[in-house]
């Protein structure tokens, strides 16, 4: 959809059947008019070599991320507002469901159905349905980390489970994992850069993922390579305040989450012990009822009531275990991986500073700055920009996620008390009932 439709919501340039090549570049004049003054990119990003490298792309039109700081995709990342991610402009939907157990000679494992619905040009078909196992998700995450090192990659649920303690094939475990995997893919889907990643595309669409995995290394991005080759050993002079602040925040944040996790676990434990006692308590009223004549019904009623409360409590504890704790743990893992990205950023900056210093000491001809130092500078600026944008998005999502999580916790407790209230209120008339003359 090129320019003209004033007033209509402007979708992302990549939507619709046209390939990216045919789309007007976001920096092109027509688009910037429609985007409005607020979104006009600042001059320093209009570097000559910043136009998307259309030479490098896969047959189906998906662009390969370039190392240019203002490549179209990373630009999109910074310009993207959360409001764009509503139903109208969304063009990619991914769901994880339908877990199935596979029993083979060598091993037993679970696969999940991954369903994709999209209007994006990067996808040949509007709908896909594939089956993936945890290994595949793990592979995807590693690939994303490799190819998009300047971005925050969402976490996966824990890989290893202690055998014997947790049943890997129990309904609860599988469901909890499914939800986490679904969240993982949705977070990638919502990310304006990661969602265009070619590995992600293949993950969603390939019939035989293993074959693709073996091809592997050929399409490693330039940026990925460059960051990979940054060896440690460069000492960082000074960390920009904002990244230092992010680091400190993440430290405290994951600490507090850890505490909340422990408290929640303790509550569940106490509730289960309470439940054990309640299970003995209720039946005693029933036994007593067996001894009585006039009091038989009231006592039996109380017994049944306590039984109902037991059921309600069981449901509460289960819900907390299955819905609350895993999300907490996910965010703790998220913080850990984010801190690693921060470290990488430090390394890139350190390398740049070291090289800059080396040049300054050499006292060479002034005007020409060596290209490799320039490249380092680009990398630093690109990294910083990507990370900043991702952090902002992460903060917003975190706020929504925790709002939802904690409101959910409150809801579950309210429901528990409401169930108990109903039980006790319903037995009052029974207790007050005057017996007929016996």
């Amino acid at each position: 959809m090129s320019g003209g439709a004033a007033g209509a919501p402007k979708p992302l340039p990549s939507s619709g059947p046209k390939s990216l090549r045919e789309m007007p570049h976001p920096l092109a004049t027509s688009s910037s008019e429609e985007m409005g003054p607020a979104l006009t990119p600042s001059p320093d990003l209009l570097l000559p070599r910043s136009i998307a490298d259309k030479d490098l792309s896969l047959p189906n039109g998906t662009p390969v991320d370039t190392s240019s700081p203002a490549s179209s995709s990373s630009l999109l990342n910074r310009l993207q507002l959360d409001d764009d991610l509503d139903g109208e402009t969304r063009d990619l939907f991914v769901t994880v469901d339908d877990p199935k157990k596979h029993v083979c000679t060598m091993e037993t494992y679970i696969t999940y159905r991954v369903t994709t619905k999209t209007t994006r040009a990067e996808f040949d078909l509007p709908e896909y349905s594939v089956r993936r196992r945890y290994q595949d998700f793990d592979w995807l995450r590693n690939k994303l980390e490799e190819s998009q090192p300047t971005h925050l990659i969402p976490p996966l649920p824990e890989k290893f489970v202690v055998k014997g303690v947790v049943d890997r094939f129990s309904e609860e475990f599988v469901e909890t994992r499914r939800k986490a995997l679904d969240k993982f893919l949705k977070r990638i889907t919502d990310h304006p850069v990661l969602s265009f990643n070619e590995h992600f595309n293949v993950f969603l669409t390939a019939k035989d993922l293993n074959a693709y995995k073996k091809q592997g290394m050929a399409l490693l991005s330039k940026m990925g390579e460059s960051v990979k080759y940054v060896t440690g050993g460069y000492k960082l002079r000074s960390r920009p305040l904002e990244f230092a602040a992010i680091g400190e925040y993440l430290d405290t944040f994951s600490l507090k989450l850890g505490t909340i996790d422990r408290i929640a676990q303790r509550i569940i434990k106490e509730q289960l012990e309470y439940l054990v006692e309640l299970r003995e308590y209720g039946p005693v009223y029933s036994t007593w009822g067996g001894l009585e004549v006039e009091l038989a019904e009231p006592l039996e009623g109380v017994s049944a009531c306590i039984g109902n409360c037991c059921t309600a409590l069981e449901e509460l504890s289960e819900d907390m275990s299955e819905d609350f704790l895993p999300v907490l743990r996910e965010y703790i893992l998220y913080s850990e991986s984010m801190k690693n990205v921060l470290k990488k950023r430090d390394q890139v900056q350190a390398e740049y500073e070291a090289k800059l210093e080396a040049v300054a000491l050499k006292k060479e001809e002034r005007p020409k700055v060596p290209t490799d130092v320039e490249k380092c500078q680009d990398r630093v600026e690109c990294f910083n920009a990507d990370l900043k944008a991702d952090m902002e998005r992460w903060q917003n999502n975190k706020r929504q996620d925790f709002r939802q999580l904690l409101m959910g916790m409150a809801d579950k407790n309210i429901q528990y008390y409401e169930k108990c209230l109903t039980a006790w209120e319903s037995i009052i008339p029974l207790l007050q009932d005057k017996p007929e003359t016996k």
Partner: protein
Amino acid sequence: MEKQNERDTCCERPRMEDCLSKKIEITVSEAEKRTGRNAMNMQETYTAYLIETRAVESQNEGQCSPVDSLWRRYSEFELLRNYLLVIYPHIVVPPLPEKRADFVWHKLSADNMDPDFVERRRIGLENFLLRVASHPVLCQDNIFYSFLTQEGGWKEMVNETGFQLKADSRLKALNATFRVKNPDKRFTELKHYSDELQSVISHLLRVRARVADRLYGVYKVHGNYGRVFSEWSAIEKEMGDGLQSAGHHMDVYAASIDDILEEEEHYADQLKEYLFYAEALRAVCRKHELMQYDLEMAAQDLTSKKQQCEELATGTVRTFSLKGMTSKLFGQETPEQREAKIKVLEEQIQEGEEQLKSKNLEGRDFVKSAWADIERFKEQKNHDLKEALISYAVMQISMCKKGIQVWTNAKECFSKM
């Protein structure tokens, strides 16, 4: 304060309208720690309770009638009750609150001097006096009236009645069995019921204490959320306020359990009263058992004496006896000796028959009046326990409503994050 509505069913002479509780107001209004010297002249600490009485009638006329008061300690209550048990064996005598704190959960103190325990005991003692005062038979007792009104010399008065002599020590031997040939089926069933009741209420109280303990733990751990939410809110910008205020509600939630469980103790006390009532019920059955046993023994004795008499009179020996054998071996008695023996036996038989008659009468009276009181007790029990269950349900409802309130408030705070 009168909580019983006994129907005037089988009480014969005493009637509800005559009950003391209608005429005077009784309260145990205070408890005070005292120190004194005991019988062995050793210093001891004990609690004294203030009993206040006031005539009801003048209150109705709008006049403020004077309050009489005196102090009594627990051991005096015990003495009163022991007296009532002996003098009115056919009555299910109201029980006293427990002597030592039992069925406690960890937060409660098992210390007799603990203020909460003393307070609950005060209420229990008042309840005891009210029960006695509203009992159609017991309320008429002088010793009871003096207990309420006469501070000095009451102990001596009680001891002068000589009730201890009438006490059947066999009643104390709870587990000894007396083989009764013709037990009254109703009393056997009742005894069985009282045993079962004691057992089930004990069990209930034990488990309830454990339940209270666990519930306490659940609520208190939530208090930790308050602290961590507060700390977390410090590093957040938009989320901070919501977290902080939600944390406050978690603190409120954790604190609310104290009042909830304190109220539940009253329910436990109501159950305990009937646990002890079961014992009183059992005592009546036991008394009947012993009376029956004595009756059977007396009848047996009479029969054997009659037999002996007959044998001596007719010279036939129907039953083997060593005396009979020896007399056969060593020669019979003289007719005079035999006559003397017969005469003695005849006197004894006469006495025995009279005794048996009165014992039978006693027994029938006992059964009649005991059964009347048992019926009265059953109705009281059904009414009271129903009320107790209702109040327990009401407590649970209140607890649920508080829970909903707190979590709704917390949810509101979370929504503002």
